[in-house]
């Protein structure tokens, strides 16, 4: 799917399926590839990006097209990523290595992704619904004047019948809306690429297959002030990476230039820091929260023990914070932090609307409450009616047994 080196990027403007200049674009077999924008930091890909490669693989197989992974960064760490992306399902890795792409910034990354889309015409582009994906995706969509569906929880291929016209092989972009009260299926029938940001943790992480092979397309990035593009000298470096990093990438192909402009650097990073707070609720994969039912400050020790055992973080309802049993940093809900971990365990939390708003998007919710009528059970996937002071120790014991056996 890689084009000849030096091919120019088509002019700005929307790419529509009826655009004669667009050639064989559109949907379905024989049209463009399925792309994933891969977020990376220090050479480590975001989990959601890898999850998306798995789903992209399924979508592409269904459509009979290839999977492309777009990854940008500076130097060796990003270069070393290519084999891992192939192992997770990419056929083509579009690698943009330039000093000015070392840190994510909306404008230069938009320039890059929109430029690559115009040149290679994928039919689908997926982003993780992270702060980066939700910063970049909309800017790219607006630049390309195409559709974008936010925060999808499912993606499928299907047909659309509208006004008697059937369009085959569209991307169904499925997402909750309206505060979770509805599930909407969104399509973008007349524009390509069809784009979506996808929530972390809803797609299954694909197994790494070190035997897969793929190509690295080296994107020649340069800056308008004349800084050199690394393409010539660095392409062999990618090949070296390929030969030492798992044997999964085979060919290295040079791609046409992407020109970053000085105006793209109107924003600069002053400071970047890991959370100084004692709790990182947002990034936690497991959150164990306590509410009024915990009963006391001492009672929270049990909640903390469960969190520690499962490798999770302690959360709390507003009532527990207001009672002074735990610090405000731990508060989940409308006036606290919104979390969407893989597993949320609500211990003795009745489940006010305000609390639910901060956790009901969790992948799985386990509610423990002595009141079978507690509203928390209406958003929970699993419910245990009982005294948390008895249930939590049982959970801890059951987990420790599984862990050792």
């Amino acid at each position, binding site marked *: 799917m890689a084009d000849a080196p030096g091919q120019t990027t088509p002019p700005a403007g929307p790419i529509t399926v009826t655009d004669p200049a667009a050639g064989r674009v559109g949907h379905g077999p024989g049209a463009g590839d399925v792309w994933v924008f891969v977020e990376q930091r220090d050479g480590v890909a975001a989990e959601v990006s890898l999850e998306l490669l798995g789903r992209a693989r399924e979508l592409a197989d269904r459509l009979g097209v290839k999977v492309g992974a777009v990854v940008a960064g500076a130097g060796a760490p990003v270069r070393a990523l290519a084999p891992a992306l192939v192992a997770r399902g990419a056929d083509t890795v579009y690698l943009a290595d330039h000093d000015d792409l070392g840190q994510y910034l909306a404008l230069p990354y938009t320039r890059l992704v929109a430029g690559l889309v115009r040149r290679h015409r994928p039919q689908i582009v997926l982003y993780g619904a992270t702060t980066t994906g*939700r910063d970049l995706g909309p800017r790219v969509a607006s630049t390309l004047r195409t559709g974008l569906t936010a925060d999808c929880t499912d993606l499928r291929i299907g047909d659309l019948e509208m006004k008697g016209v059937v369009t085959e092989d569209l991307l169904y972009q499925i997402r909750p809306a309206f505060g979770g009260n509805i599930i909407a299926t969104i399509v973008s029938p007349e524009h390509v690429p069809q784009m979506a940001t996808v929530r972390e943790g809803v797609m299954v992480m694909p197994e790494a297959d070190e035997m897969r092979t793929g190509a690295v397309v080296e994107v020649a990035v340069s800056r308008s002030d004349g800084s050199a593009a690394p393409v010539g000298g660095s392409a062999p470096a990618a090949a070296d990476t390929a030969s030492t990093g798992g044997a999964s990438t085979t060919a290295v192909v040079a791609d046409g230039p992407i020109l970053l402009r000085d105006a793209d650097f109107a924003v600069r990073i002053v400071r970047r820091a890991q959370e100084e707070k004692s709790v990182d609720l947002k990034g936690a994969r497991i959150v164990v929260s306590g509410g009024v039912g915990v009963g006391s400050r001492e009672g929270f020790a049990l909640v903390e023990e469960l969190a520690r055992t499962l490798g999770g973080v302690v959360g709390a309802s507003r009532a527990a914070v207001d009672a002074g049993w735990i610090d405000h940093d731990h508060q989940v809900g409308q006036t606290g932090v919104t979390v969407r971990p893989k597993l949320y365990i609500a211990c003795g939390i009745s489940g006010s609307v305000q609390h639910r708003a901060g956790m009901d998007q969790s992948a799985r919710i386990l509610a423990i409450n002595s009141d079978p009528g507690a509203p928390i059970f209406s958003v929970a996937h699993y419910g245990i009616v009982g005294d948390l002071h008895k249930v939590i120790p049982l959970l801890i014991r059951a987990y420790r047994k599984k862990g050792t056996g």
Partner: protein
Amino acid sequence: MNPPVDNRESRRLRLVVLVKQVPDTANVTGEAMKEDGTINRAALPTVFNPEDLNALEEALKLKDRHGGRVTVITMGPPAAVGVLRESLFRGADEVILLTDKAFAGADTLATSYALAQAVKKAGAFDLVLCGRQAIDGDTAQVGPQTAEKLGVPQITCVSRIDEVVAGDGAVSAAAGGDDTAAGDDVAPRGRVVATRSVEGGFETLESSLPALLTVTSEANDPRPPSVKLAMVYKDIAAEALPGYDDTYLDPEGDEAQVCMLDRGGRPVCRAKVVQWDHAAIDAERDLVGLRGSPTRVKEIESVVLAQSEARMVEATEDGIAELVHELIEEHILG
């Protein structure tokens, strides 16, 4: 398109806030619940989108500190004038209602195009602020897309504005489009420093002005409506002009004003709501509303908010052990 720079305004900030009136999805009342347990969206009360209030608060704080002018723009049906009224009560100087049947059915792309056209029409600006996302759609897309349409940089998910330095007043909105990411003013430019929350930490960014920021609920506690301002505007009717409530107006003039009526039926000039349709903002008809929207809703499925959706697990050693086993099998627990 932009009016000439008014030098008297230099170093005072020109702030634009984009707000939305939304159904109150967080407080679903019994009346809004249909018999089958699904939501009757039309019956939900409307509210000022919460994070847009945080954006307005940031604008008002900047005005308090540096001086300046706060212009609030909303797009919606005539009833959306409610959020403009709320903005006036909190200290906004100018309010603009974008309303037109042509805007109906807009997705985020068509919405941001209309908003960007309105911002340009409203004149030169230093900062555009809006909430990170609205609680009805939760897309968080309109902010960055409006920034792109305006051709200005964006900082999204802002939890704190650290510093704003106005330029010499010569900055103006860039023409927009792909190649004018930040305009090319020669004069000394202002800057904004803002901190945004990102996964596992935060980052502080500095941008040249003009720029667009999307603001999260972490940024502040919005001020309540001012009693003093409510007194100033006390005669303003909650509703717009008679005959204006159910349908979109198609004003004859470029800047048809919805003059609020006092209780005696006299127009009140102190608080006028500027009303623009798509022609007033020089918007191409094919780029607004449903026509300008690449996305279509194929299907909507109501989530039935019934009790006991949860699979109940026995509070016994065996029941809990089985649950833990299942969660490990599904890689929910590591």
